[in-house]
């Protein structure tokens, strides 16, 4: 079965049809999606700028990361769920769309960067200054920010690709 037949089948399912036929559903789901991106981006901005040594340098990176990481995980779950609803409602717009799949790959990269460079900081015994990858922390923080910005741009361009 090709992606196209699968999208066509999904599009015809009662659930997908119901999502499209109730006119407040898609705008509301998209609004929640944007709000959750706001939470992820705000958290990433503050944490990455701290890891890059630009913002709130009097506070330890662990203090900053501890405050924002849980919000980021929660918002990511909300993003996945609302994103899934949008795919279910309009599979043809996303599943065969190269911008959509690029966005997914970039989300995975941002997720991996967050997991690798921030999660260890939650452990009080972890000493960032002795980590083998400490030299990579700053470039990784800037990369993470750039990836999130690209993810946001891809999200808007899905509609035009």
């Amino acid at each position: 079965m090709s992606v196209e037949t699968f999208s066509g089948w999904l599009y015809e399912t009662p659930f997908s049809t119901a999502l499209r036929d109730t006119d407040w559903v898609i705008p509301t789901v998209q609004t929640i999606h944007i709000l959750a991106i706001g939470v992820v981006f705000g958290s990433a901005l503050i944490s990455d700028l701290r890891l890059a040594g630009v913002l709130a340098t009097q506070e330890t990176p662990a203090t900053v990361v501890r405050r924002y990481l849980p919000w980021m995980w929660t918002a990511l779950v909300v993003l996945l769920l609302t994103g899934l609803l949008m795919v279910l409602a309009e599979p043809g717009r996303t599943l065969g769309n190269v911008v959509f799949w690029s966005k997914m790959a970039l989300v995975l990269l941002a997720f991996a960067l967050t997991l690798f460079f921030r999660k260890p900081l939650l452990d009080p015994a972890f000493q960032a200054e002795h980590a083998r990858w400490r030299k990579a922390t700053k470039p990784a923080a800037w990369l993470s920010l750039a990836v999130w910005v690209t993810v946001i741009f891809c999200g808007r361009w899905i509609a035009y690709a």
Partner: protein
Amino acid sequence: MTLDILLQQIYDSQLSAAIRENNNAFPWIESFHVLAIVAVFGTISVVDLRLLGYRSHRRGARQLIVDLLPFTWGAFALAVATGLLMFASNAVAYAHNAQFQWKMLAILAAGLNMLFFHLTAHRRIVDWDEDLPPPRAARIAGATSLALWILVIFLGRWIGFTLSIFG
């Protein structure tokens, strides 16, 4: 000159025509608008939540506001600039769109709420800087701001569903 004539003149301007005629212009402007909105909401919600009593990366509310306000303002300026470009591309239709009108009122209300906060509770911030939860006036300002910005984003998204592009 009535407002509609002015709006029509904006629509007829070279800049508006250029945005309409270049297929990539509108999506690029929208992309920067979304980035700006997300940065406004992402940073202001951290301050609002602190005003509501949620801990932040700073012990005090004053330093948190000092940390984040430049980002909020910078992002807001980008949102206004990109918003004006989108408005110009279809001025008459936006001006007559109910969701757009409500959105502008909601932004105005958010601005007044912030102004009121800065003229009242923020003046005495040294007295409650590290208090958790902060005084009632600060909590109300935070809750109002959060609710209004969520409303602004919701209305903005609704414009896209009620206004046909370059209709």
